[in-house]
């Protein structure tokens, strides 16, 4: 075996297994064009090809596949939301995630950890109780726990009363999980490509053409392609792409920053979140602490990260885990998110016929990947909006039927 390894190392030709096909030439026409080759776009392509027999599909991306917010999120999966519509949608996603490694025959490193949303105030206890009731009613395992039980679930957490914001209780969401976010995109891409879906990274959309109120073609920097339907799945740049299609969205592009520490031995059992301290932290399977904070205070189309973010985050992380004082940060970054007025996504029909929206993914996009892809594929294939995503229509903003998800969707309130 050492000899074989040496021979491999000295060889000029490495037998690399290529899982994704090389980028083909663009055809003049496709049944479906998907703008955005992140987890969402690739999932929609996979479900279209796998369950609806629609394989004449091109997935376009300005950069590389899965290189946007799919690579920048903190990989948390949970369904402990506040509105019944949100809980049902994210729970479908969680159930799909559970079986996804099997479905794709590709290991996404899905790992159920449990999810603790700490409450430091009476108001936060009240919201936790509310969420626990809504979740339980819809069959989602969430319950209110108090310091004695929290100490058993997460022994290293600082539960001292002698802190600025002592922990009064927590919403314990047992199925909370993490997964390898890149693997989700790769798994969908590989299986979609096997069924004939064409993947076109490094292909930028420059214009969207319409005829008689219906989308007819997408113009790219590699040529013009006619199409029957388009899915826009470009969270972070949704307003810019929608403007090409001729309409505005209720979205502000706001950076969300995150960081990882150096790898440590496993000590953190769960995903720990605090709305009052504006932080969340989990430990990756490599041992790094994956940490994030509230959204930036103002809009920006840039993935720069800031010292203010790192300083503010660390002060609060150290309040919960004081023994991390000597641990170093390895990387910090940002992703540009689609923040909506009600902290819920926008999925479904758009003002342009044949043009379908998968947008409004603020800080809740990764965990929605499978359910969004599944329902968007069903929408494109049948032309009918599935009940699951009907409440997330763009029209809700004109009708003032908002889905107030702020209390459960973010740590920045």
């Amino acid at each position, binding site marked *: 075996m050492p000899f074989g390894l040496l021979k491999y190392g000295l060889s000029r030709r490495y037998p690399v297994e290529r899982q994704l096909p090389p980028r083909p030439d663009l055809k003049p026409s496709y049944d479906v064009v998907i703008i955005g080759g992140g987890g969402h776009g690739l999932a929609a392509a996979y479900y279209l090809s796998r369950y609806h027999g629609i394989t004449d599909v091109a997935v376009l991306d300005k950069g590389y596949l899965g290189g946007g917010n799919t690579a920048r999120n903190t990989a948390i999966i949970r369904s402990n939301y506040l509105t019944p519509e949100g809980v049902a949608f994210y729970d479908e996603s969680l159930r799909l995630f559970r079986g996804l490694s099997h479905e794709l025959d590709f290991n996404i490193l899905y790992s159920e950890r449990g999810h603790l949303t700490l409450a430091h105030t009476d108001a936060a206890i009240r919201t936790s109780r509310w969420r626990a009731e809504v979740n339980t009613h819809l069959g989602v395992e969430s319950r209110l726990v108090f310091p004695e039980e929290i100490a058993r679930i997460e022994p290293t957490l600082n539960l001292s009363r002698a802190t600025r914001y002592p922990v009064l209780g927590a919403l314990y969401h047992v199925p909370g999980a993490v997964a390898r976010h890149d693997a989700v995109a790769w798994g969908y891409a590989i299986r979609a490509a096997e069924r004939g879906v064409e993947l076109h990274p490094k292909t930028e959309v420059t214009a969207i053409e319409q005829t008689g109120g219906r989308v007819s073609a997408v113009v790219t920097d590699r040529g013009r392609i006619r199409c029957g339907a388009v899915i826009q799945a470009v969270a972070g740049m949704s*307003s*810019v792409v929608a403007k090409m299609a001729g309409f*505005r969205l209720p*979205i502000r*592009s706001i950076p969300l920053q995150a960081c990882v520490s150096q790898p440590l031995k496993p000590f953190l059992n769960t995903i720990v979140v605090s709305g009052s301290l504006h932080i969340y932290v989990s430990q990756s399977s490599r041992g790094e602490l994956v940490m994030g904070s509230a959204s930036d205070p103002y809009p920006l189309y840039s993935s720069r990260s800031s010292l203010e973010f790192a300083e503010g985050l660390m002060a609060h992380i150290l309040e919960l885990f004081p023994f991390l004082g000597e641990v170093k940060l390895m990387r910090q970054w940002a992703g540009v998110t689609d923040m909506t007025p009600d902290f819920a996504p926008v999925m479904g029909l758009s003002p342009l016929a044949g043009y379908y929206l998968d947008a409004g993914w603020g800080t809740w996009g990764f965990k929605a990947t499978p359910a969004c892809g599944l329902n968007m594929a069903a929408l494109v294939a049948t032309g009918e909006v599935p009940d699951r995503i009907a409440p997330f229509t763009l029209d809700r*903003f*004109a009708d003032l039927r908002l889905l107030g998800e702020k209390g459960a969707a973010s740590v920045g309130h």
Partner: protein
Amino acid sequence: MKILTCPLNGPRNIAEFSYGGEVTAMPDPNGCSDAEWADHLMMADNTAGIVREWWCHIASAYWFIAERNTVTDEIIRTYPASEVFKQRIDFDAPDGGGGR
């Protein structure tokens, strides 16, 4: 530390300010349709480029306008709102103030 120059208080740390959204033309609240008003409340141009925005210096509760590039985060100019808004806007409802 990023510096924003307040027209009233001079250059200050941007952490002292609160962002207030794009400066947009408000439709006439007494004359516009529900759809126009909802559009004004909810929708945004969300431009990637130079945008005119409302900002507030929190400590002095002073609202002003900044022109900022939303791609590079460069602040081009800040000035008092009175440069744009010359007239007082009254919010009298048609029935004379909503009664009660």
